[in-house]
């Protein structure tokens, strides 16, 4: 579990927050049309302050996960922009597509006149967040690397739309369904899996990816769970050495694995133990985490459970 509570102040951050608060007070004092009121302060994953006393009405959501959470919170009608890859739920497809979510096209985002832009808290997005602030637009940057990040992301978004109870309900329900999969009986010796993300260079997932956590929840073990990187680069030799029981991969990669001569060095590939994962379901730590865990469990324990 993440140890940081939603509200916390480290000395540096406190100073920054005080500065922000002062700025906000000065700004509102100058602006006579607005009455100054106490600002509820939150820190997002860029350690930027987020105002939660106003309800965001025009939201651009720049990650598939936050888009599906906003829809699940019943705020889908307030989402005015999304990335090219936000295709769940179906209703999200009707929202304007602004292209990339990493290093987004800030002009396209501004064109939608949002009052809140939700970003994935990656360093690649810091520039965009700064530009949006300069343009006077609030941003909410959230990190979504672990299953445990889900609750925090949901609560932050729920506060931004002014419906914290809905956030609690959603987070509870998703955590319950993940917990239910975790609690089910599992084999004494968990099957080992290698998660194939991309070829050249060869990438997999490490301990700090929610996908690795999902593998554990499903009752299996990621052979690269000892590596810290979220998506570490590895070599085929190392895979042969660690000799996984199964290869997990998306539908577009499975035929490539089967056809490639070099991959025949991996015993699981030779034996055809390639499990095709629904990547649209499992590839993001969103509202369907429980469903994703059940899907993985059905795949990796299929033989064992029979």
């Amino acid at each position: 579990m993440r140890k940081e509570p939603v509200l916390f102040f480290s000395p540096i951050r406190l100073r920054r927050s005080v500065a922000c608060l002062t700025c906000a007070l000065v700004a509102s004092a100058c602006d006579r049309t607005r009455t100054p009121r106490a600002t509820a302060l939150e820190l997002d994953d860029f350690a930027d302050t987020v105002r939660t006393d106003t309800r965001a009405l025009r939201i651009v959501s720049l990650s598939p996960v936050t888009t599906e959470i906003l829809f699940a919170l019943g705020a889908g009608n307030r989402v005015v922009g999304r990335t090219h890859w936000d295709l769940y739920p179906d209703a999200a497809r009707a929202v304007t597509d602004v292209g990339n979510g990493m290093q987004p096209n800030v002009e396209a985002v501004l064109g939608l006149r949002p009052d809140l832009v939700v970003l994935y808290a990656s360093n690649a997005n810091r520039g965009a967040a700064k530009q949006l602030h300069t343009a006077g637009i609030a941003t909410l940057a959230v990190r979504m690397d672990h299953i445990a990040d889900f609750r925090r992301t949901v609560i932050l978004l729920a506060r931004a739309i002014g419906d914290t109870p809905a956030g609690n309900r959603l987070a509870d329900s998703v955590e319950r369904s993940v917990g239910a999969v975790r609690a089910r009986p599992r084999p004494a010796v968990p099957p080992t899996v290698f998660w194939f993300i991309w070829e050249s260079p060869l990438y997999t997932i490490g301990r700090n990816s929610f996908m690795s956590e999902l593998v554990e929840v499903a009752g299996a073990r990621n052979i690269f769970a000892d590596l810290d990187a979220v998506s570490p680069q590895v070599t085929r030799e190392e895979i042969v050495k660690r000799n996984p029981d199964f290869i997990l991969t998306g539908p577009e990669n499975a035929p490539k694995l089967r056809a490639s001569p070099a991959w025949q060095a991996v015993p699981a590939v030779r034996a055809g133990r390639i499990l095709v994962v629904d990547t649209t379901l499992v590839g993001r730590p969103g509202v369907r985490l429980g469903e994703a865990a059940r899907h993985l469990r059905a795949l990796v324990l299929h033989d064992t459970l029979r």
Partner: protein
Amino acid sequence: MRPRVWFVLVCGVLLAALAGLALGPVRLSPADAWAALWGAGDTNAVAIVRTLRLPRIALGLVVGAGLGMSGAALQATLRNALAEPYLLGVSGGAAVGAVLGVTLHLTASWVQPLAAFIGAAASVTLVLLVARAAGARGDPRVLLMAGVVVGAFANAAIMVLLAGAPDETVRGAIWWMMGSLGDATWTGTRWVALYVGAGGALVLAMAREIELLSLGEDPAAALGVEVERATRRVYLIASLLAAVTVAGAGLVGFVGLMVPAIVRALGARTVRSTIAGAAIAGGALVVAADVMARVIASPAELPLGAVTALIGVPFFLVRLRRMA
């Protein structure tokens, strides 16, 4: 060249190949690696050695041979010890050709080297035109500058070709441009070997003309060489050799620079022996660099082009100082 030198070169290539078999992310003793090579012992070791390491070594040997011969021929013809396909923009042009081929879905093992060759030939023509525009075709500095500029242009062209391509394609293409033997297969290696063999035969057949060209244009003409035509031919063959290696393993720089110098330092005096020696030494160097690429950051893998550049750039600087 004395037999002792050939002996040193052959020993070098054998050592590099043995290291390539035994070293890697998975540690195998030389004895285990040797047994695995013949299919004996642990099945995993056999899979690693025969399916993963052996094709890499084979591809490394032919890629190194191509780069070494290309560099040796260019250095002699241009009378410039700093000439090599990467610095002359030839490899960059080849990469544009190969990437263009991929975007046009021409990905067969035998087509890719040809697409790369077309790009390489175009860029070598461009480099010579740029150098001629500067009015000093023979000036090594102008030629290198033209090569670097054309290389930058090629880089830009690739970025344009990749704009709008899916993320995975871009990542893959950039990885490939940094050079790697990681995707070596026997089919691909066979085609690269065939083209390198053909180019090598052509360049060795021209060894006498190159030798005369290396004396200077006027002496060569006086000795009966059709300078323009012969020079053009050498460029084309050197481009073919370099382009084929680019199609097989991406951009691997500085091998063509270092290898002829090493061979000459070992005692090669004639152009013919330099080219032949460079073929062997180039293979040894690329295989050795690939071993480093696999071992240094294990379990991750470094790009081969990064390793050769880390060795090659200091080498280049030393030579540059000596020239000045």
